[in-house]
């Protein structure tokens, strides 16, 4: 979904590297900068808390929310279980309705297909509806390399594009930008891309929106090719649906002669009846609206109305690999509502860019390491970018147990093990940098299997407790830089119990246990 967003009060964001995993720092490093930027913190806090409260109110209006959530989960699970069948059905119905279906195994193939289709029209400009899938594959960059300009028409995406920036939120990609900056970006950059910003543009939301409207209108009326994603695809009729708030989507989907939609294969539902569930859960979870202002649906092509040519590019790009994983596959249920971002205490403080992907927040932390693998520093660190507080799972309208998947992916990082990559079964090696932790975990397990050893350790600690400092050197600083350590007690509980509850200090069963 897309929502209208017109910026926060002033601050300067850092300049950001592109989302190319091998070059990106691990999450904690990237998050550190955001945490130390008080204005960014304040802005994100304000924005997430506002939408969080609105969503809660919109959801609480429905008595049958729990049932809708469960229905959404089941529809998606059923579709994923029979994805092969429904995809073929979709291809048949799209073709029957006059569309052309293309299959793309990865980002390169999808970019090649789309670039080829645009070039075949002879056009060098396209207008775009906000689409996560095209950002995931880096389509704009691929088109630019072939001399084709792609114009983003969603207001926030326009801000991101004109500012040569990266999105930091699924729903409100420019959540990190404030109104003053948006005014500056419009004033300096619009003329380079088309109609310049009006003279003396102020930073009021109404003036900024009007400037964008005038700038974009020119593009809509001129464009011969539109590129979109889709929120849903209905297998039985070959219908695609886009949910949005600004009406730019409606323009891109109806005005151009050629429409190319790039859609992840998991966006499928079998029937129109299934759509009914998500028509209720998506807007409420996303923009906290009962219904989104624009829901556009199209089925192939129609004579004398809308695009004459329609291409559907079905994108895999790691989705089939993800589907092969028993625990991780639930991430494919995601309908990109962004509710999990808005409730996440980590996202609120780290910001979207730290996640190093077009998918930030909790869903990004489980999606990126599955779609891209866990080889890079950023992808191997994402499963740890959570305190496992469970707020994301609680609000997710398709009940994705994000903490469960995070822990599962942590296991993949530290232990390696079986996975599917590019359709082939592989055995992953444990990630680098976890050797000390692994040894500590083994040692702890051994101690905990031997209560006598635990007791000995506790007694040693208590005996030397006056020597234990309240802060730690080396890696321990990660704790003690901001927190005191608890004082060690004079004796652990079990010593007290032994002294006070057992005549002679020890029961026979325990003595036996201690000698193991």
């Amino acid at each position: 979904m897309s929502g209208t967003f017109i910026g926060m009060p002033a601050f300067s964001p850092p300049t950001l590297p592109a989302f190319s995993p091998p070059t990106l720092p691990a999450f904690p490093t990237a998050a550190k900068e955001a945490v130390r930027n008080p204005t960014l913190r304040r802005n994100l806090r304000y924005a997430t808390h506002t939408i969080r409260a609105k969503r809660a109110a919109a959801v609480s209006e429905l008595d049958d929310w729990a049932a809708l959530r469960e229905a959404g989960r089941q529809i998606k699970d059923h579709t994923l279980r029979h994805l092969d069948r429904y995809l073929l059905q979709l291809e048949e119905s799209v073709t029957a309705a006059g569309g052309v279906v293309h299959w793309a195994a990865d980002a390169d193939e999808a970019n090649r297909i789309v670039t080829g289709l645009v070039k075949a029209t002879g056009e060098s400009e396209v207008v775009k509806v906000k689409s996560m899938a095209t950002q995931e594959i880096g389509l704009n960059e691929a088109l630019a390399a072939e001399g084709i300009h792609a114009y983003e028409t969603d207001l926030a995406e326009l801000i991101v594009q004109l500012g040569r920036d990266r999105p930091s939120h699924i729903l409100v990609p420019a959540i990190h930008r404030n109104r003053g900056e948006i005014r500056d970006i419009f004033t300096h950059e619009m003329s380079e891309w088309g109609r310049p910003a009006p003279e003396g543009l102020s930073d009021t939301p109404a003036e900024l929106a009007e400037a964008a409207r005038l700038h974009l209108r020119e593009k809509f009326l001129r464009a011969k090719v539109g590129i979109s994603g889709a929120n849903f695809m209905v297998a039985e009729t070959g219908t695609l649906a886009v949910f949005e708030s600004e009406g730019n989507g409606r323009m891109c989907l109806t005005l151009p002669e050629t429409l190319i939609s790039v859609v992840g294969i998991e966006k499928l539902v079998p029937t129109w009846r299934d759509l009914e569930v998500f028509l209720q859960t998506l807007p409420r979870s996303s923009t906290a609206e009962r219904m989104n202002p624009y829901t556009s649906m199209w089925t192939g092509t129609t004579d004398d109305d809308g695009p004459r040519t329609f291409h559907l590019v079905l994108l895999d790009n790691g989705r089939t690999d993800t589907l092969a994983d028993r625990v991780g596959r639930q991430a494919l249920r995601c309908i990109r509502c962004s509710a999990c971002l808005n409730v996440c205490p980590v996202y609120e403080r780290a910001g979207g860019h730290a996640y190093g992907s077009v998918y930030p927040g909790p869903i990004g932390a489980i999606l990126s390491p599955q779609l891209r693998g866990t080889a890079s520093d950023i992808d191997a660190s994402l499963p740890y970018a959570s305190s496992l507080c469970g707020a994301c799972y609680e609000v997710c309208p398709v009940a994705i147990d994000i903490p469960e998947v995070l822990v599962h992916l942590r296991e993949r990082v530290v232990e390696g093990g079986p996975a599917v990559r590019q359709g082939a079964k592989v055995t992953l090696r444990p990630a680098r940098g976890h050797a000390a932790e692994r040894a500590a975990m083994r040692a702890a397990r051994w101690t905990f299997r031997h209560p006598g050893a635990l007791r000995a350790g506790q007694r040693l600690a208590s005996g030397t407790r006056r020597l234990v400092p309240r802060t730690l050197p080396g890696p321990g600083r990660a704790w003690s830089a901001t927190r005191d350590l608890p004082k060690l007690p004079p004796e652990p509980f079990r010593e007290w119990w032994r002294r006070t509850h057992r005549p002679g200090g020890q029961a026979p069963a325990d003595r036996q246990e201690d000698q193991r």
Partner: protein
Amino acid sequence: MRVALFLTCVNDTLYPDTGRAVVKLLTRLGVEVDFPMAQTCCGQAHYNTGYRHQAEPLARHFSDVFKDYEAIVTPSGSCAAMVRELYPRLGDRARAEGRGTALAEQLAPIVPRTHELTEFLVDVLGVTDVGAYFPHTVTYHPTCHGLRALGLGDRPRRLLSAVRGLDLVELPGAEECCGFGGTFAVKNSDVSAAMGTDKVRNAESTGAEVLCAADNSCLMHIGGTMARLRTTVRPVHIAEILASTEEEPLT
């Protein structure tokens, strides 16, 4: 009823006062409490850090130690959630990995018998007024596992409200995580510290003398942050408040 106290490794080692408080409280309510000396750790840290296979022997050990008790009570929301929510998952995953049903079968009986302290008081013993006295202003932080995994709901608040002399004040942003999260506190220390600071500032804003929670792991993080920020609020486990009486007040 044979009731075992599962104190948890953190409380045993660092917070024996909480253990003594649970024993005192349950004894006062007429429950005969045992502390099986062979108990150690539920395996939560292993599991949540990605070492599920290392958590399995600890879960089996837990079952060996506690299997003969009718009820197992623990003053830790996250350890109770480990047993109740994640032990069944350990069994499922072992089965899915072709290792048979032995682990699932061994762990199944102890799962429903494991109770977090406030659950045990309200649901099993059926009491909310435990006869406690604590003449202080208290604000309550519902920890994430207690809130979302166990669904403790208003049980802790009902127990606190019945304590004589206690003035319970609402904590702003109560349902937000304090930022502990086990190894998260170290692996993502900057974000964790920021979350902890916000929690402490919220607690300060209530004017309460005491921040109460039902999990010492979170209180260790919050308390450590409080000490560093030199706040006047002090962290206290709910068991210690409920154990406090006019004759033997918590100091």
